């Protein structure tokens, strides 16, 4: 029995999905089996975001996010830079949102790389050798989940100060436990699989089994949790900037922009639209992709 999830049911997608599909190159289309309209849109959005983050400084006509573009708190107009209006000190909100994407994404990506690599390492060792190491990893993961992430981050940030590097490191610390836990669970479940046994029967060493046999199979589970955890980091980073402990000014950050606009909300509600939209869409897209990956993982596991 292979249950069909309603959301991946091709019958439920509309023509928009086809458009989204058609927009993807053929090779990419092959890689997203069972993706619905929202999944495709989310993937496309994230791809676009990454492109923007990479190439934001060569977007033609885009002004610098640090220098004035117009008068203070102007309403949006139909020019590129004025699309979201100007901020409280006259900078183009669009430009700041786009540069903010670079800041947010790079922080989150670096933090994720950190936590994924450390998490995998710890989780694999813990799952493979069990014993005290496993207990320590569990302790770490439990501790981290016992504390609200923002509290942890704040505590660290008050100690280290708010540099981009520090924030990357601190955010990186947050999810190590989760990744380690996922990796550990994967290792434990694979340890009973016959192919690990087969490798052992061939005389493979522990290191070889971990790297060659187990690690590649952790990838799907890890990539399935990754977008959701990254979305969490985007929110944490945003909250941090919102509370004033984020990326130092004048570098644009979404949370910081939202914080700056809240005081003026009753006078210039439009200020909040750009950054809020950016953060909400990004988190939404990441969550959607995470759901999609998790669901694909599930159906594949059920299918096997």
């Amino acid at each position, binding site marked *: 029995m292979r249950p069909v999830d309603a959301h991946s049911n091709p019958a439920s997608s509309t023509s928009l999905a086809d458009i989204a599909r058609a927009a993807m190159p053929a090779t990419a289309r092959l890689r997203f089996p069972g993706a619905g309209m929202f999944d495709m849109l989310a993937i496309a959005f994230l791809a676009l975001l990454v492109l923007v983050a990479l190439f934001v400084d060569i977007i033609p006509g885009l002004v610098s996010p640090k220098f004035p573009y117009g008068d203070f708190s102007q309403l949006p107009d139909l020019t590129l830079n004025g699309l979201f209006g100007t901020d409280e000190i006259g900078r183009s909100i669009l430009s700041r949102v786009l540069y903010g994407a670079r800041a947010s994404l790079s922080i989150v990506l670096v933090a994720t790389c950190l936590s994924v690599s450390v998490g995998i390492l710890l989780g694999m060792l813990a799952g493979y050798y069990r014993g005290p190491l496993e207990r320590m990893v569990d302790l770490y993961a439990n501790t981290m989940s016992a504390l609200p992430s923002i509290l942890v981050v704040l505590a660290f940030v008050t100690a280290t100060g708010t540099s981009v590097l520090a924030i990357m490191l601190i955010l990186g610390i947050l999810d190590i436990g989760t990744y380690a836990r996922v990796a550990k669970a994967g290792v434990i479940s694979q340890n009973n699989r*016959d*192919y690990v046994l*087969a490798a*052992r*029967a*061939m*005389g493979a*060493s522990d290191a070889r089994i971990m790297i060659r046999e187990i690690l590649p199979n952790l990838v799907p589970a890890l990539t399935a949790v990754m977008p959701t955890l990254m979305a969490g980091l985007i929110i944490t980073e945003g909250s941090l900037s919102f509370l004033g402990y984020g990326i130092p000014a004048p570098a644009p950050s979404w949370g910081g922009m939202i914080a700056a606009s809240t005081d003026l909300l009753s006078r210039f509600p439009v200020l909040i639209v750009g950054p809020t939209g950016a953060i909400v869409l990004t988190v939404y897209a990441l969550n959607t992709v995470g759901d999609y990956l998790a669901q694909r993982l599930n159906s594949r596991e059920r299918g*096997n």
Partner: protein
Amino acid sequence: MRPDMPSPAVADQPLISIENLSVQFTRAGKQMRAVQDVSLHVAPGETLGLVGESGSGKTTIGRALLRLLPEANTQWQGSIRYQGTDLAGLSKTDMRRMRGRLQMIFQDPVSSFNPRRKIEDIVAEGLEIQGIERSERKLRMEAALRDVGFSLADVAGRRPHQFSGGQCQRIAIARALAVQPELIVCDEPVASLDVSVQAHIINLLQDIREARRLTMIFISHDLAVVKNVSDKVAVLYMGKVVEVGTGEQVYSRPAHPYTRTLLEAVPVVDASRKIKPAAERMVMPSRNRPPEGCAFRLRCPRAADRCAKEEPVLGVGPGGQSVACHFPHDEPAPNLVSESA
């Protein structure tokens, strides 16, 4: 030919002999004896069939003799001698070298392949680990694949999920063969295959066994399959060998009541008579608290007082086999073996 092949002089000695093997698992703080005091011997070129119901310890024995039991929650006693070498005493490196001679084939062909790796890497893995040179590796892979009816070109660049269960099992056999083992433990190699594919694999194993003069331990709960492939059959019940003998002995004159129960329960493709349903029910003893005396006595139609008091040990049975029963059967097998056909 390998230099360390057994010399003809010792060929009559068992290739592998298991003496008094016991295995305990610790689960949730409780000890569970999965295998108790099992002794088995397999001569070179011989196939030993291991049968028994689920949980009787078949797999555990198979893995124990390849030293593949999980280390964390397992204890074991006894000795496993391979051509006189006690495997338990080998260091990790020596054991690794030994693994070139001992191989295993698993029940689920699909899950015995790492889904992320290419077939040729999987087949070559053992050779790589054994430190075989690249050119030699290729030759051996080709030979092994040819033996199972593939060519290297058939599998190159493809991944396990692109093959069906039967094909996967053939590749799994090739993987084991590539290292040129002397002994292969087959743990229910056909249990998950469709009937139409199963015959293929059985034939294949038989052919290879003959061609390469392999020794095999064949684990299965399907008595018909075991009968077909084995020279010698050991029946396990709750971690103990209750009967062991040649296939002929065990199947035609099963001495242990459990063996008979098993044989009677095998569904046979014989529709000439309508089966008479049995009325009585059996009682399954607990695995964690095995009964005193004979473990089978609760299900045994012949159980007597003695069975509750005294645990039977393996002795010579009526057909010449070994049997652990106080009141072994002497008559030939009941109407199963249908001379009628």
